[in-house]
């Protein structure tokens, strides 16, 4: 027998690194034209459908302009046909705000405090007769009708403020700078249950207190309004927001309705540093002339309309017709469907042809192979999501401006967060789809499951196929919770509105939504890794 020299491999492979696996999976991805095209389709769909949506806002803008009547009514309302002349009042945080109320004020210099007792809050609601007068005539209170003490940087709309107040249906509140709201003593105000309120300035710090008897005081909140001038207007105020009769029907659709309301508060035991009182509107009443105050002895009666609060997107006045970030990104779920198909196939195609055996023979460590695949498809999807969202937002904004429509303002930081959030949504959804593909192995079944999991609940919620409560639930617990990453606007408990996904409101905070989606992806990935290790290939 001849002696045999065993063969030695002439190939000197590089280091045994994870980078090679990533390189291999990336090569796999980019060399299948169908997948690359699928990703491009996903980007185009996600960006393009939003642009179509921007186009349709033409009609709603013009309709809104028409409703507002002719001639400049106010800085906040429409001026006939030119939508672009519509502007929002922006609060200190850059968010659109309502800032209209009747203000009985005096100049306050330096530190000091105002104390009042509110003995009554009554109001008028819109007539329920459609042919009735435009002015509120029906006795009743809007739950967020509010009255109390306010200290404001100046009387311009949108300027910083802090206020202690009692709201018709929500007890004592301390609110400041439009978005912030802290509850104090609960219960309605009335002759039998008066509310004592006090607002104190010490430097930049404004502190609010409440009391049932004027002897025992409780601090409700303290807030720093930095850069407050030495002399600021301060005093009594009353506001009463529009009655919002909107309700979402089962099966979709929103019923409109409502109209202006007004409230009248009675104060006594008013203690203020001094100076003379002057009454007037900040902003404008909805019904011209619908605001007044009377002073008789120590007793003040203040009547007002309007609200001091943020404006939710899609609700009330110009916000109804404004192009929104949410509208630009409406195509996201269609893009996610295309992306889920590609991401699922990235794995199931291997099973279909038994290519998985070649893959696992080349890299016997299953967990690393799955991780490499997940990272590659996740990274590709992240970039796709980033491009799609950036194009959708930039192009949407450009179209909105070019056509002279108006846009619901959001801070730039929010725009950036939404674009990156969309990319993250795409990436984690793709990883989830890949994991589903690994678990299920059959392309058609896996694709169907992935789509139903990711886009299904969102579609049901947004198309209002299910009632609001169920939609809320779907967007909390399913992978579609990740859509919260696209939620551009915070929800405000102090503003009555329907916060639906269609207008860009999600039940979870962006990062909570991401956490839910990541939880799904991680669980699916863990099961996929377990099966990949245990199963014969």
């Amino acid at each position, binding site marked *: 027998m*001849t002696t*045999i*020299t*065993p*063969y*030695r*491999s*002439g*190939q000197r*492979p*590089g*280091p*045994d*690194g994870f980078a*090679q*696996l990533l*390189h*291999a*999976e990336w*090569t*796999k991805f980019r*060399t*299948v*034209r*169908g997948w690359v095209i699928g990703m491009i389709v996903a980007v185009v769909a996600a960006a393009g459908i939003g642009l179509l949506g921007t186009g349709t806002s033409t009609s709603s803008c013009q309709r809104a302009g028409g409703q507002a009547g002719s001639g400049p009514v106010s800085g906040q309302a429409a001026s006939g046909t030119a939508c672009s002349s519509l502007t929002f009042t922006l609060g200190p945080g850059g968010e659109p705000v309502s800032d209209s109320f009747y203000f009985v004020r005096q100049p306050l210099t330096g530190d000091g405090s105002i104390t009042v007792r509110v003995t009554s809050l009554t109001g008028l609601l819109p007539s329920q007769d459609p042919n009735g007068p435009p002015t509120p005539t029906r006795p009743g209170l809007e739950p967020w009708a509010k009255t109390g003490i306010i200290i404001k940087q100046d009387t311009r709309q949108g300027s910083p403020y802090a206020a202690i107040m009692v709201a018709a249906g929500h007890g004592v509140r301390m609110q400041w700078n439009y978005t912030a709201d802290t509850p104090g003593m609960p219960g309605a105000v009335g002759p039998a249950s008066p509310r004592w309120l006090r607002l104190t300035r010490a430097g930049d710090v404004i502190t609010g207190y409440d009391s049932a008897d004027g002897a025992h005081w409780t601090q409700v909140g303290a807030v720093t309004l930095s850069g407050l001038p030495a002399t600021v207007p301060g005093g009594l105020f009353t506001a009463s927001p529009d009655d919002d009769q909107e309700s979402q029907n089962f099966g979709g659709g929103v019923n409109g309705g409502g109209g202006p309301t007004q409230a009248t508060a009675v104060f006594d035991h008013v203690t203020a540093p001094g100076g003379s009182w002057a009454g007037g509107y900040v902003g404008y009443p909805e019904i011209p002339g619908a605001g007044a105050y009377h002073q008789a002895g120590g007793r003040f009666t203040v009547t007002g309309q309007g609200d001091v609060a943020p404006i939710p997107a899609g609700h009330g006045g110009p916000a109804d017709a404004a192009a929104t970030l949410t509208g630009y990104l409406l195509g996201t779920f269609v893009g996610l469907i295309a992306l889920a198909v590609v991401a699922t196939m990235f794995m199931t*195609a*291997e099973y279909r*042809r*038994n*290519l998985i*055996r*070649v*893959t*696992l*023979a*080349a*890299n*016997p*460590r299953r967990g690393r192979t799955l991780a490499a695949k997940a990272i590659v498809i996740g990274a590709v999807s992240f970039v796709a999501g980033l491009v799609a969202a950036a194009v959708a937002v930039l192009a949407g904004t450009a179209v909105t401006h070019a056509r002279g429509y108006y846009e619901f303002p959001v801070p730039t930081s929010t725009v950036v967060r939404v674009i990156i959030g969309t990319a993250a949504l795409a990436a984690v959804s793709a990883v989830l789809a890949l994991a589903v593909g690994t678990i299920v192995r059959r392309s058609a079944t896996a694709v169907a499951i992935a789509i139903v999991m990711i886009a299904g609940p969102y579609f049901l919620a947004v198309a209002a196929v299910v009632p609001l409560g169920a939609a809320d639930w779907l967007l909390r617990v399913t992978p579609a919770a990740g859509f919260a990453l696209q939620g551009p606007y915070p929800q405000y408990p102090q503003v009555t509105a329907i916060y639906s996904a269609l207008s860009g409101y999600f039940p979870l905070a962006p990062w909570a939504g991401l956490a839910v989606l990541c939880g799904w992806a991680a669980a699916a990935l863990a099961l996929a890794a377990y099966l990949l290790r*245990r199963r*014969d*290939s």
Partner: protein
Amino acid sequence: MEATIEVAGLRKRFGSAQALDGMSFTVLPGQVTGFVGPNGAGKSTTMRIILGLDAADEGTAFIGGLPYRTLRHPLSHVGALLDAAALQPSRSARNHLLWLAHSQGLGGQRADQVLELTGLASVAKRKAGGYSLGMRQRLGIAAALLGDPPVIMMDEPFNGMDPEGIIWMRGFLKSLAAEGRAVLVSSHLMSELQDSADHLLVVGRGQVIADTSVAALIEAASGERVELRTTARTGAMTVLAHAGATVAATAPDRLTVSGLSAEKTVAALTDGHVPFAEVAAHRASLEEAYMELTRDAVEFRAGGADDAPDGTLRGGYSARPSGDAQRAGGGQR
């Protein structure tokens, strides 16, 4: 590290079917080892277990002394072709090899080398889905050679190949073995291995029935039978029977002698002064030998000794044949 495949006592059950029932063998470097047996004998399952794709219920499979799943850069240890259809059809042949090369830390030029080696360079940019089965086999071989491994394992590589391809493949396998590689090639047709295999692992029912060199197998199947012609039939039969042979008359002037080598037959006849002519050792074809072995295995199974302890059977094999055919299976029992 010795370039071998070592399989010991593999058992694997798929549902009610016992796919492997004590599969044990060693594949040594420098030769082409044919892995033959009827369909369903457990060849592919064994190969999948060697590659760590399937988990054995019992037993071990090692490449150069290590379980496959512990190998780093496994393609530079073993190159395997399990299924030529395991391709993404829309990916080009070169790109198929490219991702595989990248997974081992190799570059694109190695992919080009193996394409050249397997004669696919001119069609490398075409989608693999458009390849004929023969071309896919070549692509699979190219993939197996990527890491230039000392161990090569192929499942039915002759499938779908035209006669020219089969001839190329035989030469190719031999050249790989001549370089000192251990080459394991499965086939359900012995004729495909006729001119390429040096060593044979004959399997049936999830076990090795014979672990033998090709030469020894043929010798065993030939059964040391000698055919001769003689005019003195009675005299010859008497003399040969005395010498210990079993003699059968096949024609008035023809005898078949078994139990005695050709040399001893000639000597006995010469000593007994019996005239004879045309003494010839009977040579079985590889196919015949194989058929005989697998038939034995089937008969043995039909005998109902299914539950015989596996150990006794495995004990019947030596790791290497000593030159004689290992008539395992039915023969051992």
